[in-house]
């Protein structure tokens, strides 16, 4: 069941992105940037956690979850250390993603040649 939900929710988020590109003529950069902000906003109302409960990877794989995870990390430290905690914790949950993206991106660029 979780697989079906992942497909439906993940697909639906991508459709929203396609509509922003086709209908509202946004560039891909604008779309992903807005999605990250959207993820953070939805987290504030606890909606994103419910979405993850429902759809698993369907909610954690789209870039919206990046905004959600940033805010989640910030809040978990924020509750302990106050405002400074936000800065301490903001990358707590997304560290693995960013690190692997930098590492794999860098290594791939060293190994491969652009194909065009």
């Amino acid at each position, binding site marked *: 069941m*979780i*697989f079906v939900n*992942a*497909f*439906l929710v*993940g*697909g*639906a*988020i*991508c*459709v929203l992105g*396609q*509509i*922003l*590109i*086709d209908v509202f003529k946004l560039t*891909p*950069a604008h779309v*992903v*940037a807005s999605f*990250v*902000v959207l993820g*953070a906003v939805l987290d*504030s109302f606890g909606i994103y956690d419910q979405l993850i409960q429902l759809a*698993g*990877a*369907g909610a*954690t*794989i*789209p*870039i*919206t979850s*990046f*905004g959600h*995870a*940033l805010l989640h*990390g*910030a*809040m978990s430290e*924020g*509750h302990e250390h106050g*405002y400074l905690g936000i800065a301490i914790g*903001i990358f707590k949950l997304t560290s*693995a*993603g*960013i690190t*692997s*993206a*930098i590492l*794999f*991106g*860098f*290594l*791939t*660029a*060293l190994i491969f*040649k*652009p*194909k*065009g």
Partner: protein
Amino acid sequence: MLNDPKNYSDNIKPYLPKVPYVRNCLKAFVSGGLICVIGQFLQVFYIHFFHFTKASAGNPTSATLILIASLMTGCGLYDKIARFSGAGSIVPVTGFANSITSAALEHKSEGIVLGVATNLFSLAGSVIVFGVVSAAVLGIIRLFLAQAF
């Protein structure tokens, strides 16, 4: 009347190719959904075989997808797939990896420091900037509200 410089951009609309909205959305839906299903498989795999919890399995899952997307970018496959899938391969975390790897790869000829490393975030940087700024602002507001009430 097309010979009207002031309203030209409106008047040419009938001449522009029709964007296949429904077909594009369908492609984005299927391809984006499939990437998430692969992610779900990975998540289950990491929970069962490497004893991650449901919450912590997200880390190796994204890392694996990022690795796959980086390699596909290096092999010149990711942009071919994106011609079909549109937002379906831009919105998932694989698109984030593609934007990093493609920018780095593009500038490889300018050297490892000034080319690859400097340009790594030329496209993906905006995602991190907007993510951090929005999370920080919302975090401060929530903390303020939690302390005030």
